[in-house]
């Protein structure tokens, strides 16, 4: 179930981070997004930054969802958003990140501030699924062109 059936231009690009091997978060979020009405391209675990950038440029999703639960999400997520925002075509794409982003499991306001300052539109803590669902429901179901 790598991607929603029959999608050439998915409305959402869903991805893990370069060092994160977890996939249940991605399997689950794909179902959540599809139930809202989105079509999803699921890049799966451990995508190198350039694969995420290339996929965003090719597929032009309206929303990019970065999910990480291995404790490296802050570090990896910071590097990824800088690579994405370095592309002029992706300057205004909505990009969000969420999960368990640091190794100690503590909510960290400084971390959230640094991630948003670097270009994420929203940072979701572990357990903020309703807020994520609400944001995804407000995002257009068709790719922006």
């Amino acid at each position, binding site marked *: 179930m*790598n991607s929603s059936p029959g999608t050439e231009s998915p409305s959402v690009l869903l991805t893990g981070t370069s*060092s994160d*091997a977890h996939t249940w978060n991605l399997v689950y979020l794909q179902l959540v997004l599809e*139930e809202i009405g989105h079509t999803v391209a699921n890049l799966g675990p*451990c995508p190198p930054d350039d694969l995420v950038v290339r996929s965003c440029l090719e597929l032009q999703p309206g929303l990019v969802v970065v999910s990480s639960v291995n404790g*490296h999400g802050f570090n990896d997520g910071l590097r990824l958003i800088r690579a994405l925002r370095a592309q002029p075509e992706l300057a205004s794409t909505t990009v969000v990140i969420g999960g368990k982003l640091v190794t100690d499991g503590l909510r960290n306001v400084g971390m959230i501030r640094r991630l948003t300052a670097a270009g994420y539109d929203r940072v979701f803590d572990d357990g903020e699924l309703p807020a994520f669902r609400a944001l995804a429901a407000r995002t257009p179901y068709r790719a922006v062109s």
Partner: protein
Amino acid sequence: MTPPSFGGFVARAHARGELVVQPRMGFSDPRLMREGLERTRAAEAVTVGTLTLDSYTRVNDLAAARLAVAEGVPLNGYPICTHAPAVSHTVLDGIHGTGFPVQVRHGSARPEHIVAALLALGLDATEGGPVSYCLPYSRTPLSEAVAAWRTVCGMLARAGTDDRVPHLESFGGCMLGQLCPPSVLVALSVLEGVFFARHGLRSVSLSYAQQTSPEQDREAVAALDALAGELLPGVDRHLVVYAYMGVYPASRTGALRLLEAAARLAVESGAARLIVKTAAEAHRIPTIADNVEALETAARAARTAVRPAAGAGPGVDSEVYAEARALVHTVLALHDDVGEALLLAFRRGLLDIPFCLHPDNAGRTRSFIDTDGRLRWSDTGRLPLARTAVAGARKLTSADLLTALTRVQRTYDPGGTR
């Protein structure tokens, strides 16, 4: 001095009736790593040590590991390829030995750099496998993982001498941690064990991760034992149980009770070793104290359980054995080379892991937790199993998936279901 032998140590403990318990522990700070090993050795339990490696080392992004170490960013494991060998010797010297062998746990689909590093440090026990560390956790094509694991098996085998016996554990009993029907876990563990043995390993262990039904779990470990006996004659081997690898109970009491159940499963099914989970599992990377508590809790629970007499368990008279046997023999009949057989099997969907996102997995199978708690198929795809193996089919929603993924957590947490 005789070098430590991981398989030999476990076999001696098993013969004495002791369950070997092992943490899954790794820290980037060498002093903390050494302290973790020291306190594992000192725990009130028969233990072996673990160096769990960090995610950057796993995916061979050594530049990121170096940068993190230089900047003091804590990693989620020990960067064995990044710290200088002299530093790693300060972690291991006087600890790794015949009375306390240390195993490297890593999760890498292409572990050539890791195996080279661990052999250079005088270590020779590790784990993984061409399928079990590729499909669930990587984007590496399966053919590349098979080639890499042929190489590392050769490296480990060549390091063996008359009294140095490298050991390799298959991680095939985990496969995404949850919702994979046990017959596939058993089949993959056996097939990876056969792969290791055909590539020169003389000491292997086969794994099985605790699932949703204690009865089905006991059948699965019995099936693993029986198939290993049939297909790995003359190879030093033991069985290792993993405490639940899925969504873990959030409460301390729930987490420890689930661990105790895993320890009893290990003893009652005749397994020789248990990899523990801690009470902190659901919240963060566990501390040394969390790990010691888990080791001692598991060892206490193991002492209350009774190993069955030979022939007293479920043996080969079970659904799990019948399915696993069909899978193993179908795959082995595809090609004389086990690696090629595994590639053909996944290409044709004869092996197929439910919910696995890897492009080389067919993705035609689906599973669910039946009302009796057993994991069953809702779609067997092209698996060589009878149609009667399919027990129910309807479209899975995100809520259904979450319910299934959290079933064990809810069962063990206070106020949970059942």
